[in-house]
């Protein structure tokens, strides 16, 4: 097991390098760079020399390979470089926003799991009955409603019904839990609804599938009490795909917050990302992509470990 873990961690390194290479060179193909936006702003009259000076200062004039090597050297020493827009360390820019995004993601995940597992199980157990149909419609609707639209409806609904809106700026939970929750519960709901739908569907279908397997049928034929079958056998095996989905979706949630943060005007990494992209702030984009990649790989690792622990049939070589 330990060897397997070490192996997986080592395997993550080439993946990360691959992500770095692809990101870096893809961005460099995009026409335009940050200097023009930064200096010209609303049509500022700036000479070409000044623009070239700024490019020089930001290292944009160096050969691409050198730029890449510089960046990788920084990454190895955990130095993410500086935002080309503000000149502040990237770690600072991200750090101040990560807390908010993570909190929304975690809240959405909790909401999702709390709703999804009972709903999915019920739906599977009462397959093809009215209960199943209702649950399926609710969960499929969850997949269908775009979270940005749901967000818009939530905001407009709050405004229309209560003439009230969530706080504009972020307050950490440990400072003022009420202000914190009253701001973040809404985006968490908007995102969590979809999330729960994904998980519930996976729970349902994997339970349905497992229930058809021979050993369950045997257990049922032997007269083992149905609920016991579900609890002991079906649930355990059905949880594998569910865990995968919970994990994968969580990793993607950070990226998926891009649109939602825009709708709710949240100062999280999703919005930071959109800003960085619209300004061509390469250093910041690169680092954000790497961050998401690391989160993703970590989550995957955990999922795989759980897989291995839960299903001894799957062998790793």
């Amino acid at each position, binding site marked *: 097991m330990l060897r397997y873990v070490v192996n997986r961690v080592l395997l993550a390194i080439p993946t990360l390098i691959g992500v770095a290479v692809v990101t870096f060179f893809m961005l460099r193909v995009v026409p335009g760079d940050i200097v023009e936006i930064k200096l010209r702003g609303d049509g500022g009259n700036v000479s070409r020399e000044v623009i070239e000076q700024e490019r020089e200062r930001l290292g944009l004039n160096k050969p691409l390979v050198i730029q890449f090597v510089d960046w990788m050297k920084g990454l190895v020493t955990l130095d993410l470089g500086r935002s080309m827009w503000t000149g502040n360390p990237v770690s600072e820019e991200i750090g101040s926003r990560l807390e908010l995004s993570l909190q929304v993601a975690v809240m959405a995940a909790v909401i999702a799991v709390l709703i999804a597992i009972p709903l999915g199980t019920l739906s599977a157990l009462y397959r093809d009955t009215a209960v199943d149909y209702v649950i399926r419609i609710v969960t499929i609707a969850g997949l*269908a409603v775009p979270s940005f639209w749901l967000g818009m409806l939530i905001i*407009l609904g709050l405004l229309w019904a209560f003439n009230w809106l969530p706080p504009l700026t972020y307050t950490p939970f440990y400072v003022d839990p009420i202000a914190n929750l009253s701001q973040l519960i809404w985006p968490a709901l908007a995102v969590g609804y979809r999330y729960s739908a994904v998980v519930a569907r996976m729970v349902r279908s994997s339970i349905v599938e497992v229930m058809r397997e021979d050993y369950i049928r045997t257990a049922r034929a032997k007269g083992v009490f149905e609920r016991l079958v579900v609890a002991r056998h079906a649930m355990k095996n059905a949880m594998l795909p569910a865990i995968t989905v919970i994990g994968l979706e969580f990793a993607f949630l950070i990226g998926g917050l891009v649109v939602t943060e825009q709708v709710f005007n949240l100062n999280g990494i999703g919005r930071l990302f959109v800003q960085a992209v619209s300004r061509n702030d390469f250093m910041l984009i690169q680092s954000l992509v790497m961050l998401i990649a690391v989160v993703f790989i970590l989550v*995957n690792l955990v999922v795989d470990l759980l897989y291995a622990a839960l299903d001894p049939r799957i062998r790793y070589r």
Partner: protein
Amino acid sequence: MAATTTGSTLPSRERSALLRFVVEQPLGAAAFVVILVMALAAAFADWIVPYDPEAIDFSAMLAAPSPAHPFGTDAFGRDILTRIIYGARTALSIGLLSSLLGCAAGAVIGVASAYFGGRTDLVVQRFVDILLSFPIIVLALVVVAMLGRRLVLGIDVNLIVAIAIPIVPKVARVIRSAALSIREMPYIDAARAAGYSHARIIFRHMCPNVVAPFLIMLTAFIAQAILLEASLSFLGLGVSEPKPAWGLMLAGNASDFYREAPWMVIFPGLAISLAVFAFNLLGDSLRDWLDPKFRT
């Protein structure tokens, strides 16, 4: 209903299959009808709508729903129903094409990866990991910015590629895990022992066994592709004005009119939801119905 309208032209075996689907999966059949209606409306949009989706009509700005404009008009006086119907064309074509592209590529990669196993599997999985670790928006933005917008028959090919790429690793992963257990089956060992070529084993023996998950994912990813296109257009990275697209109709200042013109916020959102809902429901029903394991 779908069966009775199209049934006469089908051979009896398939007709009975369709009938059975309708009887066994009423929800799925209903979803199929919804999709069919949308597809027909999109295909024959030129004949069924009285307005040009891109023509600006300043005399009818922000008109409320009326017989002339059943869903009202937007800030440019463009008929919202017309734009939703043409928007269906955008959504369905982009959804179907990008899902097909992504799923096909993903399935081949997934099955091959599982079949060959070992070093190949590792390399392919690393590559899948790399792709999977990218935020979709970056991929989409970079692809669109890099290649520009290339319209073929009014469809942005680059946008399709941008939406298809994130689908590939997901499908590859799921198909791989499905194929992994198939690989362990005795009959694959038998086929190998019989000296069949890799291609033959992959396509003849392994692929048919992943058809069910493939079809299910295909419908599910059409839904997801429609959603992604809507989100990208909402952010201004997808379809651009004046082309009609549902996400685009929600962008900008659509919500400014929520009191005086709520139809601008409601109908495009409903259209997205309905389309995605129908594809998901169909996928779900297909899943229950197609998978031979579920037949008792």
